[in-house]
């Protein structure tokens, strides 16, 4: 077991290195001079060179890469060209906002997904199952940015129950878990939860149906176990995979929140990414992508470890 954990963690290191390389390369793929966005059109040669040296664009690519990585390891991701604030601060504030949204969305999605999936798997092949399966197909197929728009239309524009955009009074820096703020959270969180809900429901349904069909369940029933007892057994067997799926969905939400955050003007990492792209703010872009990707990698490792702790078969393979 320990060997497996050690191996899994060690294995992450080359992946992280690869991710950093890709992040760096991505941004330098961009055609055109990275300085174009900051410079006024008629800037002098001198000024151009000064800025170039300041931002380090005059050094060779490998040099830039290693100095960027070195500083990143110390927590310094450079300075945003557009806002002139340290990238690390900007990203971390945004991450906290996105996490609030993503965690709530994941919990909602996981809860209802498990509910629907479990019910569908328990009553497999009945109309309940088909209904739930249809719902989960719908959930998986919906374009979430469009769903966000529709929800805004219904609940904000037409009914005026909930606000359409923003993160609440006082901006995102003064977050409190009160209704004033939560009502801003509701629509985006629900929108975000739909796709994970669909995926979790599908997975749980398949798991439950498979477990119930196995012979050991017949053995348990023959032993005289009540429905509740069987239920506990099913949960124990399904839990590792279900939790793994939930963890992965959280990761996807973290990385893929940009579309929803754009619709709802939620000040999270997606929103930040959006502005970084359009303002061609390279340090911010690099830093944001790096942080998000690293989050995802770490999340994957944590999910793997938890799964192997819950399901001893995995560690042995």
């Amino acid at each position: 077991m320990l060997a497996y954990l050690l191996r899994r963690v060690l294995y992450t290191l080359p992946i992280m290195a690869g991710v950093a390389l890709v992040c760096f390369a991505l941004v330098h793929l961009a055609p055109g001079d990275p300085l174009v966005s900051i410079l006024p059109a008629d800037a002098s040669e001198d000024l151009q060179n000064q800025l170039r040296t300041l931002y380090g664009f005059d050094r060779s690519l490998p040099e830039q890469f290693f100095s960027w990585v070195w500083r990143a390891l110390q927590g310094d991701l450079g300075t945003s060209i557009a806002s002139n604030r340290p990238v690390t601060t900007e990203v971390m504030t945004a991450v906290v906002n996105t996490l609030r949204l993503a965690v709530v969305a994941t919990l909602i999605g996981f809860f209802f997904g498990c509910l629907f999936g479990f019910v569908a798997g328990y009553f497999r092949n009945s109309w309940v199952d088909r209904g739930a399966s249809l719902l989960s197909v719908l959930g998986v197929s919906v374009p979430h940015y469009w769903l966000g728009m529709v929800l805004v239309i219904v609940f904000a524009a037409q009914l005026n129950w909930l606000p359409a955009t923003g993160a609440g009074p006082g901006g995102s820096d003064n977050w409190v878990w009160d209704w004033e703020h939560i009502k801003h959270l509701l629509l985006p969180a629900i929108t975000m939860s739909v796709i994970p809900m669909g995926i979790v429901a599908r997975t749980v349904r398949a798991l439950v149906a498979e477990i119930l069909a196995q012979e050991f369940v017949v053995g348990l029933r023959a032993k005289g176990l009540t429905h509740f007892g069987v239920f506990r057994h099913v949960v124990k067997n399904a839990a590792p995979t279900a939790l793994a799926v939930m963890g992965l969905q959280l990761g996807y939400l973290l990385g893929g929140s940009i579309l929803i955050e754009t619709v709802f003007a939620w000040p999270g990492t997606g929103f930040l990414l959006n502005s970084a792209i359009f303002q061609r703010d390279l340090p911010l872009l690099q830093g944001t992508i790096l942080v998000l990707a690293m989050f995802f990698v770490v999340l994957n490792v944590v999910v793997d470890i938890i799964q192997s702790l819950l399901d001893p078969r995995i560690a042995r393979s």
Partner: protein
Amino acid sequence: MNTATATLPVEKPAKSRGYWGNVGARVVRDPVFWVAASVVLALLAMALFGPWIAPADPQASSMLSRLKPIGTDGYPLGSDELGRDMLSRLIVGARLSLFMGITPVILAFCIGSAIGILAGYAGGFTNTAIMRTIDVFYAFPSVLLAIALSGALGAGIGNALLSLTIVFIPPIARVAESVTTQVRNRDYVEAARASGANAFTIVRVHVLGNVLGPIFVYATSLIAVSMILASGLSFLGLGVKPPEPEWGLMLNTLRTAIYVQPWVAALPGAMIFITSIAFNLLSDSLRAAMDNK
């Protein structure tokens, strides 16, 4: 050798239904398949014949007729923020939206399968090297990677296609490698090696036929995701550029209109939704038909 065995039987032997024949037979009995297939065919027809089916010119704008509601005379599904007929734009928009959704998957299928089959059949160091590289790309959530790539390369159809293809290559390669590794260890592949065949012939005759099926079905399940992602890129302004009609882009430009003509503004997204459902159902029924041995 006695002469009796030297003559061939005169009649040709009866050929029975192969694997795909059986899958086809199962699939046509599934009502969901027919519903999904007809929707997909209708969409493809829209994509192919759009410009000829559309009642009005999708680019004809008229500032007087901006944002008319559904059911207006001359604008059956309303008009957009520049006064263009929504019905026509939706129909013609099918072309770009479907193209942006399906093409990356096709390209990724070809490239990803080649990489995965190579890694799976070669095994050993080649396999490790290839799959570890794939793992690095797998370490990014797909939306993030698509947007980052698009953002880096800049807006435009070509760049969007490129970034989406790159996003879909790793999952397809993984599936291809996994299936190929299983097949490679089967006895009939060993028997083929024992006949003296070289690796290329073995892959062509024995591996491909058994491996492309599952990979293909997995790829079809990616089409819906690709469509949503492609339209999403246009929604963010990273894909198709105006004034081309494309559903994601239309959603973007109509966003501000949700307070004025909400249902017209929501229409393009509904098209994406319908297309996505249809492709998902199609892929599901195909997978169900293939699972049944």
